[in-house]
């Protein structure tokens, strides 16, 4: 038999943990401490059956917290104090006795907190917590009903199972309704929090300026920049073109505001279709596999240098389709403004100048010169590194002649600068290189640390030739797998795939658009078959939650009588002294001492049994006597 009261208490703790967990990391440190302390104290109080803190004190405490956080509410900072208020109120409630009313309050506060968490993070974990929360609430309410009607205050396990099973079916039956809601309702793509703080929210990655030597290191962040659904490609093809930087301003490469009119074309080659899901960011440049020839799905214009710029830079989760050709160069009909691409800033070091001159003399055609320069890079034994980058006055010079270690920016800028000095037009291309293929989702995952810079050199009669000087590094082949290894990688990829499906099928699901397509193609039935892979989430086990349940369910200690106390002492002593004797729940005391030649133990047992099995209570002096006997063992 299980007491319903116990079940209710356990459930209410589950409910409050489920409510608070999604926002826990967003809380103030004080608030986190308060919550954890209250939770533990509440559990202890409930187990002892006493609630030491007075109701009035709690009320005052609530008011204090309320004002503390309420005063911090401002237009910039709205959600965070509100959630903190909710959690502190909840914490205070946890300290009280778990009466029906208090339980309801806890449930409602948890619900509000959970709802509030959607303002902070509207991801897959929210759905997970929501589903678990609703299940708990349903079971809780059914047991509450049983409890309130007082039909049974305790309940045997099979009945318990039956009741729980039926209670669980209640939220499940509303699943089709939820599905309908998800179907007919397009969602906001953003947690509100992001909205309110959008200035601070920016996915970095490739930058719109390249200035080698401006910092000692580069981003190692694993933040996702975009996901690109495509077929699997060779690693060497994974250049994601973002921006073209064609002008040197001092030592900084930037994109000139004036576009050169070039009549570009791309030769036919292997075509790759990608659907790209960028994480929300403010950059107007749309990365796509090198060379992207067409981007559709967002309003974007193509510059002649195959940079795609978004017309309206709204912070909205979008997706776009890109068609790319795996080409090495961009062809040019007619001429280009060579002067523009040859401009170098004053103050190029003499060593660079002489190197350029030397290589210029080695080759006859532009193409040959470029090749020679590459060979020079190889023989120079430059190595690729993200740390301890050159930071001197002339970092390029340092990189080429003394330090000989740098990141892609150094490779690309030095190569490009040398080319320009050699009279070969060149420009930098910023973007990403690499990508972890997610087999489950069939997409490439590109993270911030994959940001990369390479360059394009203009070769007469051919066009803009793509060159990645980083390849000339001695340790190029050793660039590590950037997504961890083994099981950890698998788990991360799985989690990412789930989040991807969530975004793809739920968040960015636009029924209206679908229906319009539907109408056009007149292909109604097929169009309505959506794949709700998110259903799989229900089977997802939420480990910390289960751990907690386990801890709570552990047996409690009981009040111990004098007899139990002395007996425990005795058995402990006996076990220490005679570990080989028979012990166990099925062994009587006489049996325990039978095989032991210890008069004190025997005496103890005789004496003790004579009291206990005559249904007498142990008197104090008897206890002392037994104690003494036990000590003599």
């Amino acid at each position, binding site marked *: 038999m299980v007491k319903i009261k116990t079940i209710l208490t356990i459930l209410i703790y589950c409910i409050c943990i489920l409510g608070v967990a999604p926002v826990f990391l967003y809380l103030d440190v004080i608030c986190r401490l308060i919550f954890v302390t209250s939770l533990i104290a509440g559990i202890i109080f409930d187990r002892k059956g006493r609630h030491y803190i007075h109701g009035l004190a709690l009320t005052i405490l609530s008011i204090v917290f309320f004002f503390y956080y309420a005063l911090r509410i401002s237009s910039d900072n709205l959600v965070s104090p509100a959630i903190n208020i909710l959690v502190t109120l909840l914490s205070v409630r946890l300290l009280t006795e778990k009466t029906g009313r208090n339980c309801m309050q806890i449930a409602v506060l948890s619900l509000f907190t959970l709802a509030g968490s959607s303002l902070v993070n509207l991801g897959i974990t929210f759905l997970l917590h929501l589903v678990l929360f609703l299940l708990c609430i349903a079971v809780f309410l059914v047991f509450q009903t049983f409890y309130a009607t007082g039909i049974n205050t305790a309940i045997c396990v099979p009945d318990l199972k039956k009741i729980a099973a039926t209670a669980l079916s209640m939220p499940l039956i509303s699943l089709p309704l939820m599905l309908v809601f998800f179907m007919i309702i397009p969602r906001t793509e953003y947690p509100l929090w992001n909205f309110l703080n959008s200035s601070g929210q920016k996915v970095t990655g490739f930058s719109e300026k390249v200035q080698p030597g401006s910092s000692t290191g580069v981003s190692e962040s694993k933040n996702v920049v975009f996901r690109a659904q495509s077929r699997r490609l060779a690693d060497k093809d994974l250049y994601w073109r973002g921006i073209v930087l064609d002008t040197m301003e001092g030592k900084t490469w930037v994109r000139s505001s004036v576009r050169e009119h070039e009549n570009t074309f791309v030769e036919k080659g292997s075509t790759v279709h990608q659907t790209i899901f960028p994480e929300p960011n403010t950059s107007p440049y749309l990365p796509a596999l090198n060379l992207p020839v067409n981007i559709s799905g967002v309003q974007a214009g193509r510059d002649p240098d195959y940079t795609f710029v978004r017309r309206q830079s709204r912070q909205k989760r979008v997706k776009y389709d890109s068609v790319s050709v795996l080409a090495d160069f961009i062809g040019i009909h007619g001429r280009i403004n060579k002067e523009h691409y040859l401009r170098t800033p004053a103050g190029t070091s003499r060593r660079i100048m002489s190197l350029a001159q030397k290589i210029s003399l080695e080759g006859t055609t532009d193409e040959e010169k470029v090749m020679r320069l590459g060979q020079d890079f190889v023989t120079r034994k430059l190595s690729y590194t993200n740390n301890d980058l050159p930071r001197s006055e002339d970092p390029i010079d340092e990189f080429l002649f003394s330090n000989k270690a740098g990141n892609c920016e150094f490779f690309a800028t030095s190569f490009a600068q040398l080319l320009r000095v050699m009279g070969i037009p060149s420009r930098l291309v910023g973007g990403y290189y690499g990508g972890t293929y997610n087999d489950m989702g069939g997409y490439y995952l590109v993270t911030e640390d994959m940001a990369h810079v390479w360059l394009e050199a203009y070769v007469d009669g051919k066009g803009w030739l793509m060159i990645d000087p980083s390849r000339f590094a001695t340790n190029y082949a050793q660039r590590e797998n950037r997504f961890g290894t083994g099981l950890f990688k698998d788990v991360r990829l799985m989690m990412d795939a789930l989040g991807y499906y969530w975004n793809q099928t739920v968040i960015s699901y636009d029924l209206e658009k679908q229906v319009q397509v539907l109408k056009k193609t007149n292909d109604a039935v097929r169009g309505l078959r959506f794949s709700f892979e998110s259903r799989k989430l229900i089977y997802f086990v939420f480990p910390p939650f289960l751990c907690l349940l386990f801890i709570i369910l552990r047996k409690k200690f009981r009040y111990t*009588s004098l*007899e*139990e106390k002395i*007996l425990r002492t005795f058995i402990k002593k006996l076990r220490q002294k005679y570990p080989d004797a028979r012990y166990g*729940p*099925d*062994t*009587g*005391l*006489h*049996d325990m001492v039978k095989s032991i030649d210890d008069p004190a133990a025997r005496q103890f047992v005789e004496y003790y*049994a*004579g009291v*206990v*099995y*005559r*249904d007498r209570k142990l008197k104090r002096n008897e206890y002392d006597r037994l104690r003494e006997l036990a000590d003599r063992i």
Partner: protein
Amino acid sequence: MNLPKRDEILHVIETLASRYLRGKIRAVKLSMIALLSGGHILLEDIPGLGKTTLALALSGALGLSFGRIQCTSDLMPSDITGLSIYKREEAAFKFFKGPVFNNIVLVDEINRAMPRTQSALLEAMEERKVTVEGITHPLPDPFLVIATQNPMEQVGTYPLPESQMDRFIIRTGIGYPPENIEKTIIRGGSIRDEIMQMPVLLVQNDIVVARQCIRQDIYISDKIVEYMYRLIRETRNNPLILSGISTRGGINMADAAKARAYLEGRDYVIPEDVQSVAVAVGAHRLVLNQENEGLNKEELLDSLLKNIEVPLA
């Protein structure tokens, strides 16, 4: 503690177990427990292990009268209870008492008798009186039936119905004696003659006094009753068991435990008393499910017993 006649009874057990019935101490003790708690005992073992010797020695040592019934398939109820015969010289019917009119009755191979005969015997055991042709004859006191039964399935036997197994307080086997002792026994030859001449160690009244002491003075704690009750409930709820230990079984178990406590020199019952009699008292009362009939009831009950926590405080 002053437990009347305990020393004498212990002496009897001692003497029997060490001299006459070597290697049978357990059977002797259980027989004594049955006698002291006013029940009957069923020895279930193959022939030739000394069942008869046990019964003879017991009756000899206790100075009690001894009767023996060898059951056969044509044994009639009147062969047990006795019958009235018309005595011409007295011009009246005279009742000739059957072998059941003894303090200790050895019923050999009870399962060979016809059900009707078995039931006459069992009725006598239960009622402690015999009614023949309307006249009721009381049986002597103390009255102990030691029935033996061959456990092997044999042709022409009538197994005791479950309901009647309940009438025996204790069922036990004897088992082969330990190797050394058996060798000595083999070398020493039969001791039947010795037993015939063994001295009387106890008078009839001693038994009555001891019984009274057990019934009245041995304290049985609520904890022990709870302990027994939990065992009984386990047998009733166990899915292997069709019907468990009845209330009567419970009463018998308590009686036996008290007798055991008395023999151990305690005036209160401890869990070990229950443990040492539980299987002998309880196992034969279990009725197993059809599909589990092959199980050993002793082992089953023992495992149930092992699973119950001993009340220590």
